């Protein structure tokens, strides 16, 4: 399909030639004073609450690169309609619970932010932790093949999910394992890919997203270096049914502590709020919106009188081990 683009570029050049000669700057008619409160908040059951507040910038402002954190807002968190904690500013727009409140799965949460006479609010239901479904890592198998004189290993992971039949359930599956990061490989760390088989759920593209977990400190650097991959889907096509899917991933070199004979791999099955699901879906579209002709993507916003996302994720974690002798060339010991 590359050639299709190439040939079409002729058309594009033609259009550009037509319009290229007539370009002028025109005034941007946007009210640059009335800025919105931006909320970014994800709640996790039994975890400390941390949200971030900032202000939007007019597209016409000069210092767009600055982060306009809000440091002096009144922030209240409500659980099932009852105020449970105030959030206080730490720094860089972060707000944390002043009484170490921990959210519980299966509750409604509402956030109210007051700042400079404006009030922004949002609410959502934190999915129950009962997670009426099962996870079963049925089979793990490895194989290898030669490619450019290097060995590539893959994992196949079989998962069964019993959907509880709710009208709308949204899932996130993440798979992680300790990788040996930047220290030796720099930025050329190979990226794993998850290929999904036997899937009949709606797969939003890119269904697979990658994000590197950061380190907390030098001592824990290697153990925290989890290479995470997320897959999001809904029960749209398997509501109330048992659903089988298989994840397949090529492995990057992973880390095993000296003296150990196996590495631990983690599988995270999460029930997520609809808002978060839609946010991830649109972020994926937004990040891939590099085609001149494509329709612009609007990022999900569930903040009343503001912008951003206030949502939650309820997760259970499973793990399994891989003996180091199964993947000898992938092992890096320290």
């Amino acid at each position, binding site marked *: *399909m590359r*050639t*299709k683009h*190439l*040939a*079409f570029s*002729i*058309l594009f050049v*033609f*259009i550009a030639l037509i*319009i*290229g000669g*007539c370009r*002028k*700057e*025109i*005034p*941007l008619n946007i009210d640059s004073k009335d800025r*919105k409160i931006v909320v*970014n908040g*994800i*709640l*996790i059951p*039994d*975890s*400390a609450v941390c949200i*971030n507040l*900032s202000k*939007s*910038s*007019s*597209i*016409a*402002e*000069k210092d*767009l*690169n600055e982060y306009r954190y809000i440091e002096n807002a009144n922030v209240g968190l409500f659980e099932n309609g009852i105020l449970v904690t105030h959030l206080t500013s730490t720094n860089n727009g972060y707000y944390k619970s002043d009484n170490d409140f921990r959210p519980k799965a299966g509750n409604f949460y509402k956030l109210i932010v007051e700042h400079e006479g404006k009030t922004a609010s949002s609410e959502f239901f934190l999915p129950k932790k009962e997670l009426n479904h099962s996870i079963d890592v049925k089979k793990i198998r490895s194989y290898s093949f030669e490619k450019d004189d290097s060995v590539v290993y893959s994992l196949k992971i079989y998962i069964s999910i019993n959907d509880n039949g709710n009208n709308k359930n949204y899932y996130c599956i993440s798979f*992680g394992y300790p990788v040996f990061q930047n220290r030796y490989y720099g930025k050329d760390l190979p990226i794993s890919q998850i290929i999904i088989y036997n899937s009949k759920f709606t797969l939003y*593209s890119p269904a697979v997203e990658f994000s590197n*977990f*950061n380190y907390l400190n030098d001592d824990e650097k290697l153990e*925290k270096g*989890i290479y995470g991959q997320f897959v999001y889907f809904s029960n749209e096509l398997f509501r109330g049914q048992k659903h089988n899917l298989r994840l397949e991933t090529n492995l990057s070199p992973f880390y095993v502590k000296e003296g150990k004979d196996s590495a631990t791999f983690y599988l995270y099955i999460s029930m997520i709020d609809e808002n978060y699901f839609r946010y991830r879906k649109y*972020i994926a*579209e*937004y990040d891939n919106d590099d*085609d001149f*002709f*494509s*329709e*612009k*993507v*609007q*990022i*999900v916003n569930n903040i009343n009188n503001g*912008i*951003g996302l206030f949502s939650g994720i309820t*997760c259970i*974690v499973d*793990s399994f081990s891989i003996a180091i002798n199964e993947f000898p060339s992938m092992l890096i010991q320290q």
Partner: protein
Amino acid sequence: MKKKILAFLLLSLCSQLIFGQRYTISGTITDASNGELLPYSTIIDSVSKKGTLANYYGFYSIKLDKGPVKIMCSYAGFNPSIISFNLTKDTTINLTINSTTEIEEIVVTSSTNKLRSTQMGLVEIPIQETKQLPVLLGEADLMKTIQLMPGIKGGTEGTSGIYVRGGGPDQNLILLDGVPVYNASHAFGVFSVFNSDAIQSFNLMKGGFPARYGGRLSSVIDIKMKEGNNKEFHGEGSIGIISSKLTLEGPIKKEQSSFLISARRTYFDLFTVPITMAASDGKNVGGYYFYDVNAKVNHKFSEKSRLFLSFYTGLDKVYMREKSSYEGNTRKNEAGTGWGNITTALRWNYILSDNLFANFTGTFSQYKFFIEEESNNSNNNDFFSYQYNSGIVDYAAKIDFDYIPHAAHNIKFGTNSIIHTFNPGVNVQKENGGNNNIDTTFGNKNIYATEISSYIEDDIEFSPKFKANIGLHYSFFSVRSRTYNSFQPRLSGRYLLNNNIALKASYIQMMQYIHLLTNSTIGLPTDLWVPSTPNIKPQEAWQTALGTEISLNKGYSLSVEGYYKEMKNLIEYKEGASFFSEKDDWEGKVVQGKGWSYGAEFLLSKSTGKITGWIGYTLSWTNRQFESISFNKVFPYKYDRRHDIAIALTYKHSETFDMGATWVYGTGTATTLATEEFNGYDTFFDNFNIPKLSGAYVHYYENKNQYFEHRNNYRMPAYHRLDIGFNFHKQKKWYKRTWSIGAYNAYNRQNPFMLVLEKDYESGQNKLYQYSIFQILPYFRWSIKF
């Protein structure tokens, strides 16, 4: 209620039958100068004040009381013809009328038609008038001319796509001699495919569609090619800045059969080829051209039987050739893209009796878009070729009848069947050489569909003042084992308050089974025609309108119409999707939603005298709502244009000089523009690697995202433009010569084509830039007619 209506209809019919002895006057109406049949002419008996309209094929039939009659026949752009006699039996009179170009003063009588007709939202412009108005680069263009009428909007600057009463560009049924034309534009929409020298007449309906039309929601543009002069040989041709054209017509057998052939070609490539060669030391060649050819032959077997064969083909092509040499090794690359239509119609008209007319038509229509690339190496015979094709092919057959059983009834009925073949995009790749030996075809499979429709309508005159057109259109569509069908009632009525004022109202329902997959950014020839499928439902609409036609003194007339239209199952690309995105097939890229439009249209026109023309004003609102676009928020349609004004004037000073001017103004086009930026955080969850989640912290990875309230949230600057043109005629011994000079965008307004936000890295600030296509464009054209 149904019984009451039926009783009323029967009573009306009986009352007409009882009173007086009546006879039928029937025949055809032709242009005296060339013998061509004239569609939709008006026939009025000024004694009884009764009248009728000829049909599309120039046939008329009217029943009148025994006694003296005075028949007046009129047609837009023609001088009325009057004939008086005593009616004592059924009579056949084939009327001929003269074009106004042969007399001193322009007399246009379309206002009489509009006043008496039940048809609402009808736009008729004499083809001569489109040639007098100033046009882009001197190329007379009927699609551009109809954009000057209220309720009909052009797209962005330079495009010839039209948007009627809030509808999309695919909702217009564009018929060339009864054959649907799927892509009506050349040069990315700068010109239409209709060569005005080959066109006899055209009209556009934007509402109150009679039952005989179907398949599109918003408008019907009915274009009739010239039939060819069956009396004498004539020709016309012209040479302009960007194109030349030549039309020849004449009798094959005098007054029995005739032909017409018309061709046009641009010569952009005459300029681009030397430029690209000079820029690449003769290695590269690039260019663009388009051409089109219209041809038609007809034969009159008898006064009752005629056969017509019409043909159109056109092609746009952008091409590039590249040659490179290295150490005696020569490599040649050729790449190009093109698009074009082919249409053919074979039509047989037969007058079965003095009140029954039949038309049988077989048609073929094809639109094809292609991309091709080929390269080869002289030394090692390496070869690579790639082709991409998309398009649509239709084969259709239809039968139409006109039955006039009574002076108060004009019944039309018929049926139409179309076999569609949709090609949503197929790739063919061949490669030879090295380790590769590829010959593969991949892409979307063809989709086959059948569309069948039937209709019946009756133009009923309940009283001299009250007339109605009542009809029913039925359609059926079968695709991929799924069938859709619909009954679409059509109703329009006219009430004459007096001889000069008519009140009109209409209600229609429409169904459309095919869709044009187009980006909102810009219309491209890559836009795909796709069918309704089991997943993609047909588009539906209903529209109601209320209006008045007022005939004023001195040739002035005023038309006012208000309308409300609702549409559902409209199709749009999803957010983030485009023709080029490869992550899904076409069905996966689109969403369906609804839209609605309402407004009022005012048209003041002057059709007699040295100065003719019109002033049109539209006040309208058009919105869309899609569940997965802008989170189900209502957003304005791209061409939601609150105010739209068009003034078109022609002035005929003498036989040797006339001039025209148009001025248009429109509220800025709606576009999507980010208005704010915000910290959008990518979340990750520390301690997720610890099986017990207790104490996990959420961390946020900061990222700047852009925000806009909804699609089409921003308005481009208003659009306005003045065009002016002058025509100098001179009758030479053998031909009439015309010099046309003028200017498009005479006061050099930089109208917006698109807006782009660009970051100024010095100041760190976003700036908004407007891109314009056409600034002032002078033109000249030399034409002859013989």
